[in-house]
């Protein structure tokens, strides 16, 4: 049991800088009771070592890399400072459970959507997060032969004028209003095909084209 506890505490020292500071300031009092004397000594030594900080930095870099690579448009819209704040809040509520990028990115989308429902106000964010979340869900690994269900995102701004600049790393300004739906489905070659239809769903009037290259 003590090996398990030792490993759990060492992992926590890496991922949780607040706990690291606590062990630094309180020493043994901040450690669980089911550790032997040598394990306590090693953990206090590790907590006080700069090497644990750099290991924590590597852990953070690994987690942040998942979000940056999977949600480039959301990250571009948030900008560095706001992204850092939101990611910090997200990490306080969600521990790292998986190596896999998709799981972390979808959990972050879910977190941002909850933040929006709770009152976070950032122009265009709702549409952009829903778009990237839908794109990731369409790209989820297939279980069996079942293709993922098509996804529809309701836009109140022009998707092209919003998403294309973000895909190039630029935050758009003054995007024209446009009430429409962006529909995404998985093509036979595995790529996502996007089409815009008016919000009333009139398919005849739809301006349909493949936007995947524009938004990817």
């Amino acid at each position: 049991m003590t090996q398990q506890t030792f490993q759990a505490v060492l992992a926590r020292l890496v991922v949780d800088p607040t706990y690291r500071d606590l062990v630094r300031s309180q020493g043994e009092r901040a450690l669980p009771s089911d550790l032997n004397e040598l394990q306590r000594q090693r953990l206090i030594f590790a907590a006080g070592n700069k090497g644990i900080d750099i290991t924590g930095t590597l852990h953070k870099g690994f987690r942040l890399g998942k979000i940056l690579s999977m949600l480039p448009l959301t990250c571009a819209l948030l900008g560095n400072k706001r992204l850092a704040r939101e990611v910090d809040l997200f990490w306080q509520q969600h521990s790292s459970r998986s190596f896999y990028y998709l799981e972390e990115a979808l959990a972050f989308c879910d977190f941002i959507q909850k933040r929006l429902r709770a009152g976070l106000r950032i122009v265009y964010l709702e549409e952009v997060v829903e778009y990237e979340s839908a794109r990731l869900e369409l790209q989820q690994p297939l279980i069996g032969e079942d293709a993922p269900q098509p996804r529809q995102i309701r836009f109140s701004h022009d998707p092209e004028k919003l998403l294309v600049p973000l895909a190039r790393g630029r935050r758009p300004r003054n995007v024209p209003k446009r009430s429409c739906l962006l529909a995404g489905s998985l093509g036979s070659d595995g790529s996502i095909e996007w089409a815009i239809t008016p919000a009333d769903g009139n398919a005849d009037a739809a301006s349909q084209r493949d936007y995947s290259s524009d938004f990817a």
Partner: protein
Amino acid sequence: MITQAFATSASHARPCLSPISKLGIGLAYQSPLRPFIETSNEVFDFMEVVPDILWTDLGRDRTPRYVEDSASVDFIRQVRSRMPVIPHGIGLSIGSAHRFNREHILQLSGWYEHFQFPWHSDHLSYNLARQNDDEINVGVTLPLPHDNEVLDLLVPRIAEIRSAMPIPFALENNVYYFDMPEQDMREAEFLNRLCEMSGCYLLLDLHNLYVNTRNLAVDPHAFLDDLDLGNVIEIHLAGGMELDGFYLDAHSGRVPSAVWELLDRTLPQCPNLGGVTFELFGSWFSQVGEEQLTRELDRMRNLWVRHQPDPKREAR
């Protein structure tokens, strides 16, 4: 304790040193390297792949648990038709005290049926740990103390791995950014004992050793003097970078000159070596470029031909 160790050793020992295929020079797969791999296969002899990136582990409560990326697996299959493919896992977390990841071994065994790799490897570390009633994945290879109780944890696990796949299994010496006081033995002795007791082999990552030299003042020559190099079946090379006063195992570019010197020194002393592999993270490939990558692989081959018997190819 030593008597007990040898008793364990007898029950898990390798029947003899298996003849390891002398493959030569390897390149670690990353998806941005695909075009290079497709067009430059004359500069390397085998491809190493992290199998975990070609499947998604949906979690312990899901069925099926592992979902493979069919496009990537098809690519690996194409490469396998031209050269051996060696899996080098990151997901086993063999040192986790709270549980042993048997499902991972089962999944890899399925791959063995398909790809018939000559050996396989993983990291001598842990990344999964208990967190309250759940589990955390730290995403970095955390160190295991060089203690007898860790040997006791690892040896039966390695026996399970060896019985699941009838090929050599190697563990990679870890990289450390902090030390642990009062370990039962030094790292080289720990690795020697682990191989002796369990029958596993060693993947000697010379860049990890160099990182430990830079950050923790490890003497690389004393380490190599003490290490039983007969256990080494593969060597890793890579480049790194500095951050906040540390030198990182970033796989970010050219192999440092000190690591080339370690390779030059080590190669002639590894009678069971199967290959030397270069690791480069895909995101650095555009910066390194095809020409530089080819030069690194050529330099590896020149040393391989000079020091290893039965070279597959002439020096370029």
